[in-house]
Each structure stands twice: as C-alpha cells, then as structure tokens.
C-alpha cells in the first residue's frame, strides 16, 4: 500500500487539489470535467472503504461540532428534509496560467479578482440539500458513534504526533482499532446498560427530549450525482469537507442594502454557525443495520433466528402484561414494511390498533411498550392524539414561500420510522379545520402510506413507509388500522432489566429479518388460495383487505423465523392467530 501524499482526513482539499493537478498533468482539459469527477472521488473511496478509514471520520452532531476543525473530513448522518435546488459556481479557473479548482469548497482559496472571461473559467453546478438528524432517532443509535468519536479524537492526537510517519499511518490506525475495540465495546455496554436502567424508570418524556437534543441541521452540497439517487426523506450518510463561511455576515449586510428584492437566497436564513456546510465527497444510503452497534456478520442461521425470536417474543409478552397473542401481533407489526406499491395499494404495511386501553392502563402498558419499541427500533415517534393536538399541530410539511423553505411537519418521517398514536387521551369536542385536515392526513397515511405535502397552491403526495401503532379504548375510527386487537393483560407490569446483549441481538434480528426477500411456492400458493376462497364462501363479509392482511401476516410470520418462503406451518399459525383475534373481537 502506498501511503497517501495528503492526509485525506485532515486536509481533504489538499487531496482534491492534488488529484486535480494530476489530472491536468495527464493532459486533460478542464472543460472535460464538466459534471464529472477527475479521480478525486476514487482516492477518497479508496481511503474510506478500502482502507477502512470510514469509522474514524468524526460524525458531525451538536456535540462534535464544537471541536471538529473546518476543512476536515466529517461524516453526517441525516434525513434529506428539503432540497434547495442547484447552485452554479466557478468550478475551475485560470489563475495566471495555472488552472485551479473550487470544487468542494465555498470560496476560492486563491484570490480570483480578475477572473471572469469565460475561456478562463468553467462553471459547474452542485445541488444543495438541507438535511436534519433523522426525526425520532433513538438514543441507542448514537451511543455507538460517540464512542467511535472518542476513540478517533484520541487517535487524532496520536496521529498528530506521528505525522511525519505518514506512510505507516493507516496501518497503525487499523491495528489500534482492532486492539481497542473490545475495550470500547465493554465501555459501550456499561454505558448503555446504565442508560437503559435509568430509562426504565424515567422514560416518560424521553421521546421529546430525544428529538430536541440532537438537532443540528446541515447543508449538504452534492456534486455530480444523478438526481434520482437522492430523494426527499431518505436517510443518508454524507462524507465530505466541513466548511464554515466567514463572510456570511458581510454578505448579509450587502443584501440588506438592496433588500427590496428577494434575490437573496434561502441560505441567508441558514447562517453557517447554525447550519454547517458539508461539501459531500461520498454519500451512501443508510439502512437500519448501519445504526447497529455491531453490524457484525452474524449469519441469519435458522436456529439462531428462532432463538432470538423466542426471547424477543418473551420480552414483548412480559412488556404486554402476559398477553401472548398481542405480543405476536406486535412482533409481526414491528417487522412490517411497504415492499411494493401497486397503484394506490401499499403492499406489506401492517398497522396495529391495540384497543381496550384506558387512560390509566396506557400509562402503564403503553409507556412500557413504547420504551420497548424505542429500544428496538432506530427511529420512533410518539404522538399523543388529543383534541388540542389535532387542532393545533402541523402534521404535514408546508412550503413557506417567504423563506422558500419546506417547513417540516410531524409526519415528515424517514422511511421505516415507527409512530405510536395514543388515542386514549382523546375526548369529545369540536375539530377545527386544521383538526379535520390533520385527521385526514393520519387516515391517508394509515390507508395508503402517503403524506400530502402542502405547497400552498397545490398539494403533493409523498410516499411514506411508517409503522403505525395505535392505542385506543375502542376501535379507532380516526386512524383505522389494518389489525385491531383488544388488549387483555393478565398480570401487572413485570419489571425486567434487559441485558444489553439481548437488546442488541433483537435489534439486529429486527433489522435483518425485515429486509429478507420473500417468495411463495406454487403449491403453497394454491393452498392459500383455496383457504381464502373457502373462508370467503363461509363469511361473505371478508373482503380484499382481509385477504391482504392475512397474506401480509403470513409473509411476516415466515420472515420472523428467518425463512424466505411461506410454509404450511406458518400459514396455519397465521390462521390460528387470526381466529384467536376474531374470538377476542366478539
């Protein structure tokens, strides 16, 4: 391995420049770089992935922003909340007789006073994305990164010390990582365990604080990537150069002077001390699995999966006051995701409505379940559905044309988020127009997994994939769920401290099993069809929705065992579950 001439971590722009000069030296014309990379990205790709340096790149958040140096490489994990369009910039220009580039930076490092004549400069474009931390991100997803951060910061100091020894540098780091990882892991475990136990007691307000605590938005500048790659509400990890513009204030004065126009762009409302800029070199879409502590390579072996499934089910049963049937449904619900869309039908969703929960019992079991879900899934959100909330909350994102920004709404959630709607607090009263609109939005989300974004002059439907869990006293009519099951606890809350290993295993299980492919044998398909026809002959009230539900459950059931095709056994389990549920409903 040849050591890098530039430290990609501490001086990424230097590396960019180096490759630019290299490319020029090889006789390429700057004009041929329009909308293309000249080899800089390859260098970083090699650095980050082949050399495994990705985990050493600090993650930018509210705490790390204090010590991360500008113009260094950082990571940012977040959801694309808004797209601010394109920006044209002088990509390359001639400084005297030398071509220089401005790619991946805000202001040029060399004075470009008299540039201007077009043959001496190339105009390129980049996209601006406004990203926020994923709404409702559970605390356990971060703890891992923080640990990594600490270790990297230590390493950074070390690195400085042995800067001259640059050639072995990366190897050294790799070794260190290997050595340090067990201890780091232990530390992590201790940390999260204490956190967990604390959580059990005082978890009432935790969702809110979670959202508030870590809200560092970020303006990402994307270069040369196809538009279809990055979509609204996608969760991405961006690796790029952090810059802090120093001249923003001067810029603002300038604009005030001629403020009667609104040629000023959105950026004015996003000063860089609040919203750091990242010039993105490499981005990748994140999966739930990327948030796990040990994204290890556990083989999804059937026995292992079965074992984890059993223990998770036991846990859920305990959380739900020994209601085993409800626990089964909750498990299936937690595994659901929209895996296909045919016209208006979102196939694969399985929203769950736990009924027979009163105000009193929800404070016990509801909270218990919510904590459990929070500990299991990366993105969770809880919505207390009161009359006042419905009448005042802004659930749908709305475009504000004054600032030309999309104001986020509660329902702008990342794909795969979990949303608990607590309807037990709802009392009789009048809904105003906002309330009616909000109720409609919730219903649409439930039925079609779509959220209407309000663009004032028109509305735009965005697809969503959100797991919805409803707590209510009777069957909820505001948010009609796919599955309604009366909740029948038989024992009081059993207080149980969950070992962290188990929690991690469950998280891994949910994330892995959820994304398994699925198919059906033609024989089994016949069988299922026959069963459905027979069921419909017996009960005319069964409709396509009931069939859909059964099939979704069947799919999830066999997935929960880590299997990729439906077996008779699982189909019968689903039918039995459905029978038990219907019995309860009577």
């Amino acid at each position, binding site marked *: 391995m040849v050591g890098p001439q530039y430290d990609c971590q501490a001086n990424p722009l230097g590396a960019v420049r180096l490759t630019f000069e290299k490319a020029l030296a090889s006789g390429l014309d700057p004009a041929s770089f329009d909308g293309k990379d000249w080899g800089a990205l390859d260098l970083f790709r090699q650095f980050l992935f082949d050399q495994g340096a990705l985990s050493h790149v600090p993650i930018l958040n509210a705490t790390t922003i204090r010590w991360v140096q500008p113009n260094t490489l950082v990571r940012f994990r977040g959801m694309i909340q808004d797209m601010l369009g394109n920006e044209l910039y002088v990509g390359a220009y001639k400084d005297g007789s030398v071509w220089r580039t401005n790619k991946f930076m805000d202001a040029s490092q060399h004075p470009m*006073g008299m540039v201007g004549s077009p043959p001496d400069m190339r105009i390129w474009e980049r996209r601006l994305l406004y990203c926020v931390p994923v709404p409702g991100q559970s605390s356990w997803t971060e703890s891992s990164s923080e640990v990594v951060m600490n270790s990297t910061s230590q390493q950074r100091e070390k690195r400085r010390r042995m800067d001259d020894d640059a050639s072995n540098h990366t190897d050294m780091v790799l070794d260190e990582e290997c050595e340090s990882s067990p201890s780091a892991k232990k530390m992590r475990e201790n940390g999260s365990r204490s956190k967990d136990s604390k959580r059990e007691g005082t978890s009432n307000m935790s969702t809110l604080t979670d959202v508030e605590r870590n809200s560092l938005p970020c303006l990402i500048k994307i270069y040369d990537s196809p538009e*279809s790659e990055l979509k609204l509400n996608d969760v991405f990890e961006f690796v790029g150069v952090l810059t802090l513009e120093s001249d923003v204030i001067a810029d603002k004065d300038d604009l005030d002077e001629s403020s009667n126009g609104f040629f000023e762009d959105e950026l004015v409302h996003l000063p860089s001390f609040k919203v750091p800029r990242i010039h993105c070199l490499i981005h990748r879409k994140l999966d739930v699995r990327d948030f796990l502590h040990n994204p290890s390579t556990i083989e999804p072996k059937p026995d292992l999966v079965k074992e984890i499934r059993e223990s998770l089910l036991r846990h859920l049963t305990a959380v739900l006051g020994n209601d085993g049937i409800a626990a089964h449904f909750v498990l299936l619900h937690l595994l659901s995701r929209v895996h296909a869309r045919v016209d208006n039908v979102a196939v694969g969703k399985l929203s769950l409505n736990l009924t027979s929960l009163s105000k009193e019992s929800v404070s016990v079991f509801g909270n218990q379940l919510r904590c459990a879900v929070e500990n299991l899934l990366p993105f969770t959100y809880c919505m207390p559905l009161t009359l006042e909330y419905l009448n005042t909350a802004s659930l749908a994102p709305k475009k504000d044309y004054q600032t030309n920004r999309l104001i986020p709404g509660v329902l702008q959630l990342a794909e795969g988020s979990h949303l608990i709607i607590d309807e037990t607090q709802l009392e009789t009263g009048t809904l105003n127009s906002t309330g009616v609109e909000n109720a409609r939005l919730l219903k649409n989300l439930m039925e079609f997994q779509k959220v209407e974004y309000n663009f004032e002059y028109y509305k735009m439907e965005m697809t969503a994939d959100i797991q919805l869990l409803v707590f209510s006293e009777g069957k909820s009519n505001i948010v009609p769920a796919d599955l309604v099951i009366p909740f029948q606890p038989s024992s009081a809350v059993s207080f149980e401290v969950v070992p962290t290993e188990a929690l991690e295993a469950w998280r891994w299980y949910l994330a892995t099993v959820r994304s398994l492919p699925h198919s059906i044998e033609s024989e089994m398909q016949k069988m299922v069809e026959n069963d459905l026809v027979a069921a419909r002959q017996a009960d005319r009230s069964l409709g396509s929705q009931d069939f859909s539900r059964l*099939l979704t459950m069947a799919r999830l059931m066999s997935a929960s065992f880590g299997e990729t095709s439906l077996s008779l056994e699982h189909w019968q389990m689903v039918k039995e579950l459905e029978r038990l549920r219907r019995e309860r409903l009577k």
Partner: protein
Amino acid sequence: MASDSDFPNFNNGPSSPDDSIDNTFSSPADNSRVRRGRGGGRRRRSSTPAAYATPLASQSRFATPSDTPTTTPSRSHRRSNGRRPTTSPSSTDDIPVSSSEAGDDMDEATPTFVWGTNISVQDVKSAIQMFLKHFREKEVLLSGSETEIYKEGKYMRAINRVLEVEGECIDVDAHDVFDYDSDLYSKMVRYPLEVLAIFDIVLMDIVSLINPLFEKHVQVRIYNLKSSTSMRNLNPSDIEKMVSLKGMIIRCSSIIPEIREAIFSCLVCGYYSDPIVVDRGRINEPTTCLKQECLAKNSMTLVHNRCRFADKQIVRLQETPDQIPDGGTPNTVNLLMHDKLVDAGKPGDRVEVTGIYRAMSVRVGPAQRTVKSLFKTYIDCLHIKKTDKSRMLVDDAMGVDSGPPRIDEEIQFDEAKIEQLKELSKQPDIYETLTRSLAPNIWELDDVKKGLLCQLFGGNALKLPSGASFRGDINILLVGDPGTSKSQLLQYIHKLSPRGIYTSGRGSSAVGLTAYVSKDPETGETVLESGALVLSDRGICCIDEFDKMSENARSMLHEVMEQQTVSIAKAGIIASLNARTSVLACANPSGSRYNPRLSVIDNIHLPPTLLSRFDLIYLILDKADEQTDRRLAKHIVALHFENPESAEQGMVDLAILTAYMSYARKHIHPQLSDEAAEELTRGYVEMRRRGNFPGSSKKVITATPRQIESLIRLSEALARIRFSEWVEKHDVIEAFRLLEVAMQQSATDHSTGTIDMDLITTGVSASERMRRDNLVSATRNIIMEKMQLGGSSMRTLELLEELKKLSPGSELHLHDLRNALATLASEGFVVVHGDTVKRL
C-alpha cells in the same frame, strides 16, 4: 466609483444583472458592443477589445472560435428604454470598429461579427429585415390569392398597429421565425442578447421609415419557442441562451424603481448636469462641477425628481407538480421583469415564460470587487404567457359545437407521440387493452370499466342553431355493496381525468358543489367562488357517498347534469356558470347491503328524477361466486408474493392512457354513419317493443328518449376510443350492450325479470304496480263480503288472514295491506282507525 458608497441607491445590488458585469458569465454579450437598450439591464462595457485579443470563446458554445475575426459592432449611443428620441439609429449603429488588436488576419472587407462567433451582424440584420417585411402566414400563402400576397406581411401590420396605438412592443412568434428562417431562429436562441439587439435596431429602422416622428422605443418580444426546457434541466450550458419555461408564480416582489438616468446639480453654483446614464449598474457621480466657471469639488448632488426611473420586479417561479420527479421537491427560479411585464402575473398563476437564462456573480461585500465563486441565476424575462388564461380563450373560441376540447394544456403532443398514439389506436383490441389498463388492480367489473372508459372519452356535445344543446358528457352511478372497490374506482378515475374533482357526499354542501357568492372583505364587492362542479368544467366530478349527500345539495345536481350550467341568483349577482362536467357518483345501498328484493330506488333512496339523469347505473354486487372469489384470492396472493410489475401484461401505462385520452378528446369528433343511425333506430324501437308482451295488458317502458341520447353518447365515445371519425354499426351494438348490462343490473324488475325503466323513472315497477292494484281489489272484495255498511269494525290482522286464505301462494305483508287500505280509505270506501277498519 468612489461615490458608490455615498449613493447606495445607484448601486443596483445583487438584484441587478449588471453589477460587476465583468463577472457575469456572458461572454459575447459583455464584450460585444451590441447592446440592448431594453430592460435597463445590459449596457456597454468600456473595456477595450485588447483584453480579448485571443478570444477563446467558451468552447461549450462555439466550436471553432479561436481565430474568428472579432470586430465589435458598436453603437455610439445607448438607447435608453425608448423614451429617449432615437435619432436615426441606423446611422450610428453598426459601424464596424476595427479593433486592430483583435484580428491579425483581419481584412477590410470582413463584415462585422458578433463577438466570439462567426455570425455576421449584417447577415442577421438583413435576415431580420426580410423576416419582418416578408413573413406571411402559411394559410395566406396557401390560399394563393394574389391580393393576399401583395398585402403587407403579418409583422408589418403588427408594426403599423403598434404605431397607431403608440405601443411599446411587438410580439413575435418564434415559430414564425423558425418557419421563415430556421438559421435565424437558431442564432436567436443561441445568442439572444445580440440578435435581439439587432432585432430592435431593425425594428426601429422600420419604425422610423414609416413614421420618422415616432418617439417611443418599440421592442420585440419573442414567445412560443420550438422547445421548452424544464426548470430542473437548466444547467450551465444554458446560460445566455433563450429558454422557455413553464411554471407557477409563487412570489412577486414589490415594484422596484430602478434608476436609468440621473441628473446632478451643483450645490455651489446650481448648475444642472446633463443626464448621466447608468453604466454597469452604477452612476458615476461627477466629482467636480462640470461648469467651467465653477469647478467646485464634491459639490454635485442628486436631483431625485429629475431622474428617470424604470419599473423592475423580481418574480419567483416554481415547477408545477407534474414536472417534479418522484421523491423531489419543486425547484424554483427567479425571473426579472421589466417595464410592461411588471405585474403581468400574480402568485398562483401558471405561466409560460420566455427569457434569457443568466448568471450573476455574488460579491463578498458591498464595497469589495472580489467575488465568491458562486453564481446566482435568474431569467431575464422577455415574454410571459398565462397558460390557464389561454386555455380559457381557446375554449371560448371553439364553443360547444366544435366538440369539447377538454385537454390539459400540459400535455403536449409532438409528432412522435401522436404517431405512437395512432399506432396504438390501430390495434384491433384497443378497446379491450384500454379496459384492461384501467384500474388494473381492480379485477372483474369489466363492464363497469368499459362504461367508465366511455365516460373518460365522452361523446360529442351538440348545440343546435335553435339554441337547444345536448350534452356529450356521460354520467355514471355506481351502486353496490361495501367493500367492492367502488371508491377505488372513483379515485382512479379522478387521477386519470383531465380536470377531476373528488368530493365526498357527506362533506359537500350545495354551495360547495356549485358556486357561492361572498363579499370581499376589503372592497365590499360580491365575488363568485366556484364550487367543485364548476371547477371540474370539462372534466369529471367524482362524488363518493352520493347517498349520504344532503337533499339540498343533491337537488343542485339536477340542473348541472342535464343543462350543464349552474345558475346563481343571489346577492346582486345573477349568473349562469358553465359546468360541463361528467358526474361519476357512487352510493351505498341504504341498508348497507343491497337488497335484491327491493328496487334500486328503495335501495339507495335517491329521487328518480336525479337517477334518470345517469346514463349508466351499475350495480356492483358482491355475489357469492366461487369463481370470482378464486380470482380475487389469486390476485391478492400475486400482489403480495410476486413482483407486481411482471404480472401486468398487455397493458398501457397511465401516462400513455392519459395522453391517448386527451388526444382523442381534442382531435376526434366522430359522427354517426348512416348505418349506425339505422342500427340505433332499429335497436331503440326493439327495446321499446320489448315492453309490450303479446297478450299482456300491462305496458312496461323499457326505454325512454333519454336512453337514446345516452346511446348516441356511448357510441360516439366508443368510436373515439378507436380514433375513428365515424361511428360504426358495431359501436352502436356495443353501446346497446353496455346500456343493457347496466340496465339489467339496475332496472330489472325482480319479479318478472324484464327491464323496466319505470323503476328508474318513478321508482315503482309496472309489475309491482299491478300487484298493488290486485291487492287493493282483493281487499275491497273481502271487505264487501265480510263487513256491513257502517257495521262493526274489523282488525287488520284478521283481514290479512283472510287475504292469505284467498291466495295461499303469495307472500303478503301487513305493510302491503296497510298501503292497500290507505288507497281504499282515500276512495272513501273504508275508515282506518289505528288497527281497526270500518266500512263506510
């Protein structure tokens, strides 16, 4: 330049395209001396051509620029926005300034070129002259009559008209330019600044020839470019090109007065300076008094009310929803409007804009000349067209008789697309293919889908010279059991139809559906606000939960569904609004499940008057049919376990279906062929005749004149589906079949099995009426037999027993008997007191 900070007003700031124009990425424009006076935006640059001794014009724009001789046509004076007298521009313009530094190989005869290109100014000028003077519309040329040819060309007439009304601009259709001289067109699009400047010069030449005393400056406004760009696709290579965009105005700034000419006076001696024009977005304040006798330093002050200002406005345009790709947010772009264009659009307007895409650099600070590497882009607007408005105009011009051109302007048909659609229409099974493509996730219900397809295509509206008009819209009602995907069908049609409005009956009020009058809180004027039906004019209004609609709201529909207007007479407004809409309604049976023993009317509780206005009424019943169930099960299993895309075959996707439909609605206006007309008459007579059973005294109405209208509409729609201009016999036969299928489901008298239109029109079938008559007479007989005149009374239950004895086979309900007794009581034959009956 030192005075800049003293006079910040003069500095246009970042809102002007000119400030620090040397950084604008606008090679040919900045450096050439060809300047457009309009818009106040572009002005001369004082830099010497020496700076461009080796013009490496941007490669992206021009392939072989390096040794093009570059002479810069210069205009010795600036035409400042027209109000200044243009003293024979031709004499001062375009004098070739030989810039010896520029071209070493330049020779005396070299014509003037636009900087950085090989476009000769003279060539362009003469081309424009030719175009303006000689362009004639194609139809005129084709008509060939000599008088037409010797008449003046289209644009000469336009110029004359402008001179008459003292206008300021001439709209030039870019299509005309293209037709006349495609080379000129491409030059214009690629180098708009230069070519438009020459255009203006030529125009002024012509104007001064016609009327030398005409003082106003006439500008040219180009519109209707051959191709329009999407906002998303604007990229660096479009800079300084002419582009055409569609979008929606979302924000307008206030009107900004922009200084054009400044006049200074000396504080010491009171001397007024000559007007000083804006140069590169700045006004150079004289540092010393210009009067020879005074020459006081720093004494000049601006005289505001003697300066000239022009209007400027910044407008933000946003993409319309149909241009936004999946998972994206709408893009926006800024427009710069000048003079006449200011306030041409309001927020919310959908417009098509023609302009020049420009970029401007961002300066770091107000006083600094250094710039950031960023550019701000905007479009210098040349022409703005409201797309919505134009559609309205088209509609009005064509009227009803030319058929409903209900298309969305957004769908553009180019040659290739039309060819593709025509190819599609030639498929022999196009009718079936389209049916299959309609709501593919709803299985079965093929006949319903066929009916809906006819509704989407629509028939021809007809307006007789006598004033009577016949609607071409087909109204459909779906009645059915819950869970039979009626609402899904509705949603689907709503998505598909050009101007669909979806409402739910429960949430709609009469005014919400039609129109209502409100008072503007500010002006106190009464304003009409359109409701759903008016808004879906020339579209389909989908009404879910039709049965749950209030009586009041439903009664409004009577007028809409037959007359296709909404009349309003209240609060000082008497108006009749067009509501040429097809209604697609769906209703649940009143008892949640359809009771096959009752009539449609009883099942859905809709007034027969309204019901008869529906062309097709479908009953979507959930029949206990194993075959259907199996298909349902298969479908859902496939949905869940297979790749849904692969399961669909032989279907047309939604976009093509919409395009196909729009094209057919716009361009195909089928007429009845003789054969079809004959078939129609024959079929109708046949249908009527079916009501008369031989040897039966009862008369069942199986068809009404309304049905024949429906039939014509349906057969027209069917011809349209085939892209055929003639309604053929098989269209009529299919229309009969569709109607019969619909009627069989809704208008079948369950006791006899025949079709009975009375069921729809009055709610009572003929056989039912007969049965009631029979009961009344039987009751009468029994009462005659059993009871004495004025004698003891009898209980109704006893009567029922007696009646049942008389006819043991028939089912008899107390309810029926009560009805019969009520009839008898009204005849004065009996008196009914609660449960007892007394004969009078």
